[in-house]
C-alpha cells in the first residue's frame, strides 16, 4: 500500500479497534438532563485525559492528527462588527432569510428578516440561546451528540463559544435560506463551532452553511459540532459549502440530523478543501415516515486529506433513504469515504440505497470508498453501488473535435460528473459557487492532470 508523501497516511494491516471508530452515534447523546455547565465540565475531563484521535480502517487508510500542534492554537474573540472579507467575497449576494457569522471564536454578525422574527423565528448565538431560550436549549442541546469519543469532540463540548442557534416555529415556511457562516481568518486559531437547528412541527426552510478560511500560512483548527432536529412533518434542505482555503486548516467535525415522524431532509455537504478534514455525518430517521436524501460531493487537491464517515441510520420504519456521493481527487490528495446504511431491529419497511462515485485525476491521488450495510430487520431493501473512474479520453477528443480546448473539455467532464448533485441543490447561486470553485481547482491542477493523461 502506498504511503502518502507527507506521512499523514499509512496503511497498516493488523489488529485495531475500527469497529468502534466507524460506528453510528445512534442517538447516544450526552445531554441526559445535565446542565450546560455540567456537560462542559465532563467534556473537559475527557479532553484532559485523551490524546489526539486516530481513525483507522485497516487495509485502507489511517487518519491521524499527530501533525496538529494543538497547544499552539487558541480561541480568539472579536467584537461584533464587520463581516470578514472571505465571507463577503465568497457568498453570493441573494435574498436570504438571515445570516449569522462566527469569526474565529465569536459571533460577529447576525441579521434576520424582521417578518420572520415576528413569526417567532429565532436566529442568535448558541451562547445567547442557552440563556434566553432555556427550554428549547435544554430540550435539544447535545441530545444526539456525544462529548467523549475523542479529544477534539470533547474540546468542542468543553470550550465552544459563540455558536449558532436557529429555531423555526411550527408551520412556518421560509423560502430564502438561512446562512450560517464559520470563518477562520488567520493561523493559530482554534475554532470550536457549535450549531443547533430546530425545525418545529411542519416547518419548512433551508439552511446554507459556509465554512471558509483565508489563505494563510500555518495551522488553524475547526472542531465543529452540528445538530439539527426536525420535528413531525418538518422539511429542511441543508447545504454546506466547505472550503478552508490553502492554509493548514484541520477540520474535525460531527454533524447529526434527526428526523421525527414524517419529516424530510435533503442534505448536501460540498467538501471542497481543507488540509485535513474528518467528518462524521449522520442522518437518522428516528420515527416512522421519515425520509431523507443524503447527498454529498468532495474535491481534494494538493496534499489535502479527507476522511468522511456518512451514516444513513434508520431507527424505525417505514422510512426512506437515498445516499448519493460524488468525489474527485487531484495532486497527492487522498479521500477516504465510508458510507454506512444501518437499519435497526424493527425498522421494517425501510428502503434505502447508497451510491458513491469517484474520479481520480492524478496518479498520486487516491480515493477509497467503502460502502457498508448493517441490517437488523427483514422487511427492508438496502443496497449500494459505486464507480471509480478516470478521465475518458474518447470524450475529451469528442469535445475537442467540436472546438473546445483540452482544459475546457476536462472541465466539462468534471462538471458533468458533479452535475446530478448540483442540479439537486436546486439553487443556482450555490451551484454556481461550487462550479466556480471546482473550475479553480481544475485550473490549479492542470499540469498534474495533463501529465497523468499523457502517462496512460
Amino acid at each position, binding site marked *: 500500500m502506498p504511503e502518502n508523501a507527507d506521512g499523514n497516511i499509512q496503511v497498516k494491516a493488523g489488529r485495531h479497534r475500527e469497529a468502534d471508530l466507524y460506528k453510528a452515534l445512534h442517538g447516544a447523546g450526552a445531554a441526559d438532563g445535565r446542565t450546560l455547565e455540567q456537560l462542559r465540565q465532563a467534556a473537559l475531563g475527557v479532553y484532559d485525559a485523551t490524546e489526539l484521535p486516530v481513525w483507522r480502517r485497516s487495509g485502507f487508510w489511517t487518519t491521524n492528527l499527530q501533525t496538529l500542534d494543538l497547544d499552539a492554537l487558541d480561541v480568539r474573540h472579536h467584537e461584533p462588527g464587520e463581516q470578514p472579507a472571505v465571507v463577503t467575497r465568497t457568498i453570493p449576494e441573494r435574498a436570504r432569510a438571515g445570516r449569522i457569522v462566527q469569526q474565529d471564536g465569536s459571533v460577529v454578525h447576525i441579521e434576520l428578516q424582521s417578518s420572520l422574527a415576528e413569526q417567532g423565528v429565532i436566529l442568535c448565538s448558541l451562547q445567547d440561546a442557552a440563556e434566553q431560550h432555556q427550554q428549547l436549549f435544554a430540550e435539544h442541546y447535545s441530545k444526539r451528540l456525544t462529548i467523549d469519543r475523542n479529544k477534539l469532540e470533547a474540546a468542542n463540548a468543553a470550550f465552544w463559544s459563540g455558536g449558532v442557534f436557529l429555531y423555526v416555529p411550527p408551520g412556518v415556511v421560509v423560502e430564502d435560506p438561512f446562512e450560517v457562516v464559520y470563518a477562520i481568518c488567520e493561523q493559530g486559531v482554534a475554532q470550536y463551532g457549535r450549531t443547533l437547528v430546530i425545525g418545529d412541527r411542519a416547518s419548512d426552510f433551508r439552511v446554507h452553511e459556509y465554512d471558509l478560511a483565508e489563505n494563510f500560512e500555518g495551522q488553524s483548527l475547526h472542531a465543529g459540532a452540528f445538530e439539527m432536529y426536525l420535528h413531525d412533518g418538518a422539511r429542511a434542505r441543508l447545504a454546506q459549502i466547505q472550503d478552508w482555503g490553502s492554509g493548514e486548516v484541520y477540520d474535525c467535525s460531527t454533524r447529526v440530523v434527526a428526523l421525527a415522524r414524517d419529516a424530510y431532509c435533503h442534505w448536501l455537504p460540498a467538501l471542497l478543501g481543507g488540509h485535513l478534514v474528518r467528518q462524521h455525518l449522520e442522518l437518522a430517521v428516528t420515527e416512522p415516515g421519515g425520509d431523507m436524501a443524503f447527498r454529498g460531493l468532495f474535491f481534494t487537491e494538493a496534499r489535502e486529506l479527507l476522511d468522511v464517515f456518512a451514516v444513513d441510520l434508520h431507527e424505525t420504519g417505514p422510512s426512506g433513504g437515498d445516499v448519493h456521493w460524488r468525489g474527485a481527487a487531484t495532486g497527492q490528495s487522498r479521500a477516504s469515504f465510508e458510507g454506512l446504511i444501518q437499519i435497526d431491529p424493527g425498522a421494517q419497511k425501510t428502503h434505502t440505497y447508497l451510491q458513491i462515485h469517484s474520479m481520480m485525476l492524478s496518479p498520486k491521488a487516491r480515493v477509497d470508498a467503502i460502502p457498508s450495510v448493517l441490517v437488523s430487520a427483514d422487511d427492508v431493501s438496502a443496497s449500494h453501488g459505486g464507480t471509480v473512474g478516470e478521465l475518458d479520453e474518447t470524450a475529451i477528443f469528442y469535445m*475537442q*473535435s467540436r472546438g473546445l480546448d483540452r482544459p475546457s473539455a476536462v472541465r*466539462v467532464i468534471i462538471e458533468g460528473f458533479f452535475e446530478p448533485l448540483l442540479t439537486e441543490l436546486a439553487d443556482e447561486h450555490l451551484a454556481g459557487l461550487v462550479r466556480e470553485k471546482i473550475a479553480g481547482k481544475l485550473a490549479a491542477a492542470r499540469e498534474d492532470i495533463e501529465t497523468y493523461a499523457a502517462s496512460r
Partner: protein
Amino acid sequence: MADLEIRNLHVRTEDHEILRGVDLNIDRNEVHALMGPNGSGKSTLANTLLGHPDYEITEGSISFKGQDITEAEPHERAKAGLFLAFQYPVAIPGVSVANFLRMAINAKREEPIRVKEFGQELQSAIDLLDVDRTFTSRHLNDGFSGGEKKRAEILQMAMLKPDVAILDETDSGLDIDALRTVAEGVSKLQAEQGMGALIITHYQRILHYIQPQFVHIMLNGRIVLEGGVELVERLEREGYDEIRRQYGSEVTAGANSSGESSA
C-alpha cells in the same frame, strides 16, 4: 489548392501501419463518398483528419484552407472549420445538448453568441433534423438510441456550420426514415452553406439520398479506385470482392483486419 488536401498520408497506431499513402482533395461545395470494406482504414482517416491522439502520422501532410494542420490540436482543426460526425458518438453525462452546443459555438467566436440568436439557430436546426424540442435539454448522447446519437451529430454539424464535414458511417444503424432525415439535413447544409462533405460508408444506401460527385474506394489503407457515382453502381453489382481481386493483390489481404478503430 483544394480546401482540404491530404498528401501521401501514412498513419500508424502502436501496433501497425493503417494508412499507407492516402491522397485526397476536398473542396467546399463538393460531396465525396469514401467507401471500402471494414478494416480498410476509413475511420482511421476520419479520426486522423481531426487529430486523434492515438493515430501517429509517419509521413505525408494534411492542409486545410491553405494552412498545414498535420500537427494541429483537434480543437484548432474544429475552429478552422473541420467537423467529424462520429461513427460512435460519445456520451457526455451531465451536459445538455443545448449547453454543449453553446460552448462549442462560443469556442469558435470572439464574443459569446447572443441568447436570441442561439435560440433561433437551435430552432432551425431542430426543424431541419426533425427532433423533439426536449431533445436539446437531454444530456448529450447519454442514454440516446443509436438513431438519436446520429441525429445529434448532424444537429451539431448544422449548428457549427463547418466548411468541410466528415461523416463517419453516419448511416450505420439508421432506419430508413432516420436515414432520409439525416441525408436531407446534410444535403440542405451542403446546398445552403456550400459545405464540403466526405461521406464514409460501406453501404450504398445513403448515397441514394445524397449524390456524391466523387467516389473513392479504399482498400488496405490506400485509395485504390476513384471515379464518379457510377462507381457506386459498379460496387452494387460486383461487391468489394471484385475490387479486391483487381486492386488488393499488391497488399496482403487482412494484414490490418483489426486496423479500423472504433474510437
